[in-house]
């Protein structure tokens, strides 16, 4: 038979045990919320960096118009063809671009004054309206994410400017 003191000790142990369980549960819930918050923040940050590409990609030196070293607010059609060819043929440049952009595709399609779905290549530079400056498609992906922006395209052969839509597609592999 237990005396009164032993009963009190047992009660105290029971209460302390319950409190510890509650604290542990609280810690688990807090950890889960913090982890999910971090994941959501990382996702948002990633999205922001991806969407920022519509501001930075038209500005890359490889395709930006320039006259006597002075940059202009447009994209040069000839430079786009050369860049597309270079990403295919030059292994070092291809590696550099893949490090920079990863699994993505960047295409530019003229919409004004003319619209053409013919792809521009080194063999066909003028009678066309779609340029692919970078493409790295994985064998398997779970989804796509796409952003687009209007850009100014300069066609040096007729010294004219047009408006094109730059589409940046990211292949989601994870």
């Amino acid at each position, binding site marked *: 038979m237990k005396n009164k003191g032993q009963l*009190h000790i047992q*009660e*105290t142990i029971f*209460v302390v045990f319950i409190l510890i369980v*509650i604290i542990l549960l*609280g810690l688990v*819930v807090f950890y889960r*919320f913090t982890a999910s*918050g971090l994941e*959501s923040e990382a996702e*948002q940050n990633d*999205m*922001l960096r991806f*969407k*920022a590409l*519509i*501001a930075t990609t*038209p500005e890359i030196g490889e395709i930006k118009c320039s006259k006597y070293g002075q940059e202009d*607010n*447009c994209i040069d059609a000839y430079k786009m063809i050369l860049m597309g060819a270079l990403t295919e043929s030059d292994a070092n440049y291809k590696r550099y671009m893949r490090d920079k952009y990863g699994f993505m595709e960047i295409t530019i399609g003229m*919409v*004004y*004054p003319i*619209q053409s779905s013919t792809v521009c290549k080194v063999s066909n530079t003028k009678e066309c309206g779609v340029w692919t400056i970078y493409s790295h498609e994985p064998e398997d992906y779970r989804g796509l994410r796409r*952003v687009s*922006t*209007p*850009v*100014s395209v*300069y066609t040096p052969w007729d010294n*004219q*400017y*047009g*408006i*094109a*839509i730059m589409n940046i597609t990211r292949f989601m592999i994870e």
Partner: protein
Amino acid sequence: MRKGQVEIIGLMIVVVLIIVAGLIYVKFLMIDDANDGGLERHEDSIRSNNLMGAVANIRVCNGQYSIGEMFALIGGGEVCDGKPAEGYLSKEIPMIFEATGVRNYRFWVLEGTSVIFDTEGCEYGVESGNYVLIVDGRQFQTHLRFCSELSTDE
């Protein structure tokens, strides 16, 4: 342990649970506030600026005039296709924006403080920066606004 002590512990547990629930609610409230379209507005702002830059470069009327030059010709006689500059731009500007997929917008041009061209449209939305075109010493401030869902058409 006395009955009173047990009740106090029970009360404390209830208070702790209410505080935890309150914190979770506040956290969700903050997440909702952070996701209220800030990213989309930022994206639209970049798009409208890029579009204004592209529009400023093009030449219209069979390559005869730049857009800025056309603004300078507003108020004059016939300039293109037997139309005055304003009439020609009223037809051409919507065509340009439609080609780029922009439908719900307002585009207007100011010379000084007076509006010389206005497609009319919404009152609220995401605006491009003040894009200035200078033609023969005359300054034209062009504005483009992508209408938001809250906009009311005039």
